[in-house]
């Protein structure tokens, strides 16, 4: 009787151990990306673009070509790569500071041009790498290093809802928000990421997956408590769901 | 006017086609085997106000393409005369569009050539070719380009233009050239005295 391997490292994921904090969601989201690339059999022609933020070293964890972009500019860099090598699968992996603050212009316009790239947007409502400052997605009242009295809408504005904004544009073909706070949601997130890359493989257009995630270290919470806090506090502000699916990829799957 | 080099400033309202007029002269010079340069004013004035460009035709290599002291100013409107009149080299030429610029007391050390460019263009049925009337007139004075050079160069400049348009452009050249010839503008440099009836 031979043994059958039922679970292993996806081929697209490198052997480098993650540097992320204990309990961080990045490792799981990386894995979901690698699984989607493997299942679509495009690992040999995928090019990733790493952001500035906690996932600045994302390129260390994948086995395909990577560009490391300046803060917020990943969608512009990805535009350059995809236009140059249109048969490649090009994706950016960005956090909330990178995508929703300093890189707002780049993400909106890449989406509006309908660049045939995939964007994985990890929203944990805080700047992780720089040590826990307020993000554009930080909740009202949430305390961070730079909102020590809690975010005040009258001076710091409200949490910005990127998926909803991007879904208002004509060009994007797929805009969805997922989370990985439970097994059921994890499976939905995996499917969403797969769908996004599948659309790119088929040359369809701009696909955007927002993953609402935790940051136990900078939230000052245990990982399990963080997912509970996410469910109770973040999801009411950032509701899960698909905001745009022009081609009906979710139904066809 | 030196036979080696001709420095020209062409000026008018935006829309009078002075940049194109400069291009016609420069392109013609190039096809006639001369060294040429063309520099436009490109400031905010190009949006609705006045426009001008500097053209040099030369038998030798052009060192500086900037025209500070023009041999000739071709002025299509009144403000252009005001702006450039004093810059013309002593003994140089002011060729002006007398349809829009009244005769007046200009400098007495330059040659004055008045061309009713708008009226001529209107007679041809297209006021827009007033600039090309001036090109034809200029070729009468130039030592570096001829009327035939202008005619030879035109089809390349208005690529894709309809036959009628090409014909009217050529007619504009001819009318400008003939106007100078008929008026015998070869009278001396110090026309100011002529105007004053002395």
């Amino acid at each position: 009787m031979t043994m059958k391997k039922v679970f292993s490292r996806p081929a697209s994921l490198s052997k480098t151990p993650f540097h992320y904090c204990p309990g961080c969601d990045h490792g799981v989201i990386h894995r979901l990306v690698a699984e989607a690339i493997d299942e679509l059999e495009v690992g040999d022609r995928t090019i990733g673009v790493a952001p500035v933020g906690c996932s600045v070293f994302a390129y260390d964890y994948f086995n395909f070509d990577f560009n490391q972009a300046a803060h917020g500019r990943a969608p512009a860099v990805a535009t350059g790569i995809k236009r140059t090598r249109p048969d490649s699968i090009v994706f950016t992996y960005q956090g909330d500071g990178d995508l929703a603050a300093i890189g707002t212009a780049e993400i909106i316009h890449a989406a509006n041009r309908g660049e045939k790239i995939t964007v994985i947007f990890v929203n944990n409502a805080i700047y992780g790498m720089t040590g826990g400052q307020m993000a554009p997605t930080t909740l009202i009242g949430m305390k961070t290093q730079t909102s020590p009295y809690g975010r005040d809408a009258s001076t710091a504005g409200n949490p910005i809802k990127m998926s909803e904004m991007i879904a208002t544009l004509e060009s994007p073909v797929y805009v969805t928000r997922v989370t990985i706070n439970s097994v059921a949601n994890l499976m939905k997130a995996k499917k969403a990421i797969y769908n996004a890359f599948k659309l790119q493989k088929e040359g369809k257009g701009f696909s955007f997956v927002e993953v609402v995630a935790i940051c136990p270290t900078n939230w000052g919470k245990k990982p399990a408590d963080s997912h509970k806090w996410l469910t109770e506090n973040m999801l009411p502000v950032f509701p899960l769901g698909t905001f745009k699916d022009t081609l009906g990829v979710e139904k066809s799957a | 006017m030196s036979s080696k080099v001709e420095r020209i400033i062409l000026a008018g309202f935006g829309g009078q086609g002075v940049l194109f007029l400069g291009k016609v002269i420069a392109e013609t010079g190039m096809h006639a085997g001369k060294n040429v340069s063309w520099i436009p004013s490109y400031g905010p004035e190009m949006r609705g106000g006045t426009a001008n460009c500097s053209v040099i035709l030369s038998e030798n290599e052009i060192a500086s393409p900037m025209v500070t002291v023009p041999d000739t100013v071709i002025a299509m409107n009144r403000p252009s005369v005001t702006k450039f009149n004093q810059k013309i080299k002593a003994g140089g030429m002011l060729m002006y569009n007398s349809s829009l610029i009244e005769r007046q007391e200009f400098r007495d050390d330059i040659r004055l050539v008045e061309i009713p460019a708008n009226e001529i263009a209107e007679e041809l049925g297209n006021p827009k070719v007033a600039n090309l009337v001036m090109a034809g007139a200029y070729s009468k004075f130039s030592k570096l380009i001829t009327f035939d050079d202008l005619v030879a160069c035109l089809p390349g400049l208005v690529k894709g233009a309809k036959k009628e348009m090409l014909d009217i452009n050529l007619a504009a050249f001819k009318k400008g050239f003939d106007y100078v010839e008929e008026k015998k503008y070869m009278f001396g440099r110090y026309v100011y005295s002529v105007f004053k009836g002395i």
Partner: protein
Amino acid sequence: MAKVLMKGNEAIGEAAVLAGCRYYFGYPITPQSELPAYLAKRLPEVDGVFVQAESEVAAINMVYGSGSAGARVMTSSSSPGISLKQEGISYIAGAEVPCLIVNVMRGGPGLGNIAPAQSDYWQSTRGGGHGDYRTIVLAPNSVQEMADMTITGFDLSDRFRNPVLLLSDGVLGQMMEPVNLPEPHDYNINSKKWALGYRGSDKNERNLCSSIFLDNDELEEHNWHLYQKYQVITDLFSKGEYKDFAVEEHLCDDAEIILVGYGIISRILKTVVEKCRKRGIKAGLVRPKVLWPFPTAVFERLAKTASQFLVVEMSCGQMVEDVKLSVDGKKPVFFFGRTGGTVPSDFEILNEVDKLVRPD
């Protein structure tokens, strides 16, 4: 090929196409907008890509992406836009990605105006962005050179995996002169083994394009690697195959006063030198065609024979510092400049020369 009367901005565009460039990313700004307009029309004819970006910041980062994927790629702008591109240029230099950046200089600081200027010399030759890096800076003075140096620029950037800056100004961008266009070059996008998406059979590990080295020792090693590359480039221009390309000398051998200028100013200085000679003033002209690496050797040599130098710029005095460093105190170095969009006339420069050679 017959000569064509073209604007400097358009000549760059056509030369880029002939050099095998098929990718342009930019944002409109006067006085360089004819260049993107030309390529917006021209690139689709050769199956190329033109993207009008949302900003100069985005444009230079698209260049970074495209260059990292192996393309011959370019962007262009004018002074305020080039300031915005500095972030990307620093990343491109750090990641060693080839590309061509065109600056058609206008007046600054701030919004300044749209008239010609040369006040971005320091920004261009000192790096401009953050970090220890250099860009090769080419300074054309005619429409013909706008075309020729575009091609040289692409060759140099590919050879050294380094950004090349073509430093021009509003006059050169806007003026028309006859141009002999060069023969087209073939460029194979799969010629760079380090590029992202390279698919040659000899590729055995993944390619990475990055400027981050968090470990101190690694970053120091990288910076010294870049420094050594810059030394190789410097040698190439000071004594190697680009020695003659780097600088133009005119009537310097017996010159008592050497006039120094680059770009459009060098054309005016040539007229000034001719006028000086007619008046019996032994004037010569040195015209740096490459601003980094600066052609110091020619000044070291002429400091022995000439008695003084006059640097003329459309700035308050920037390149004059490099001339002073090169002359090294051996002879006096004077400066005359106009700014704000005024191009100095040959008459006023001649007046300055008179003051220096006939001090009364």
